[in-house]
């Protein structure tokens, strides 16, 4: 048998393989025949020493076929396990999401508190100043209304100061929190994609 006949028969017997795989097999045997001929064998001898192309093909296909069903079977198993395991991993997933959510909420608690305090102090200060004339008139201008009014004015200014402090705190904590939230989200996304890469 000539080399070309051998390769043709092998190619025909391997027709069910993907083209790239078939090409790789054929070039392997092509190279071996050439190397044998270079080593002093005749084309006939070189081809005959390889054996029957039908048998070679059956061996190669036998090597291939068990792999495909195993992998699809395993895939089916994984899907089945994922579905059956949902009560377990579903609960874990929900718990994980809840933990992440609560971390997020906790992260924003200082900002919310500081903001609420700033608004509250500001409102109290405004109320104190607006209510000043009413207080003075209610107590009586001469019956100690002026000192009481002065006291309330001072209190309102102090509350305004507290409000400004809280607003400053709100501003800086807010900035820090947004940054922290962003980097937490980035970390979360990175760890998820890394896991995906590992399982893939």
């Amino acid at each position, binding site marked *: 048998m000539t080399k070309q006949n051998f390769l043709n028969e092998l190619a025909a017997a391997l027709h069910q393989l993907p083209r790239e795989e078939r090409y790789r097999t054929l070039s392997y045997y092509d*190279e*071996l025949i050439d*190397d*044998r001929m270079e080593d002093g064998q005749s084309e006939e001898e070189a081809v005959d020493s*390889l*054996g029957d192309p039908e048998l*070679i093909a059956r*061996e*190669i296909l036998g090597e291939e076929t068990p792999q495909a069903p195993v992998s699809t079977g395993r895939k089916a198993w994984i899907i089945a396990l994922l579905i059956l395991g949902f009560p377990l991993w579903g609960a874990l997933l929900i718990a994980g999401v809840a933990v992440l959510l609560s971390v997020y909420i906790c992260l924003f608690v200082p900002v919310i508190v500081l903001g609420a305090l700033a608004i509250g102090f500001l409102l109290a200060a405004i109320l104190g100043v607006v209510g000043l004339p009413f207080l003075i008139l209610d107590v009586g201008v001469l019956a100690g209304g002026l000192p009481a009014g002065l006291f309330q004015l001072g209190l309102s200014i102090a509350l305004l100061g507290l409000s400004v402090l809280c607003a400053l705190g709100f501003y800086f904590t807010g900035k820090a929190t947004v940054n922290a939230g962003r980097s937490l989200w980035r970390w979360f996304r990175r760890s998820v994609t890394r896991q995906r890469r590992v399982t893939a």
Partner: protein
Amino acid sequence: MDAQLKKGLLEVCVLTALRGKDSYGYQIIKDVSPIVEISESTLYPILKRLEAAGFVTTYSLEHNSRLRKYYRLTPAGQERIRTFLVEWQDVMRAYRYIASQGAGDISQTGRKDETP
């Protein structure tokens, strides 16, 4: 020889044939066949497996105006040889034990299945 055992041995023999120098199909067969019987159609799936496992890499070189596929041992492949040697120390110990205990029987039982 047990088929599974032979397959495992051949894999490490092929890796060993690539130690120190890259080699190609026919040369590997010539190097390994005096040690363990190997044919072209046995070598092909072994090379494919070794490449898939990352124990060898391949490249093509022109030789006499045709392409020849060369195989090169990777560090993972060298590690595989080392692992084999370590694991087989246990096998060798067992072999020596068995041989020392039943040395007189080898000629009768050891070759029983080969004599017609």
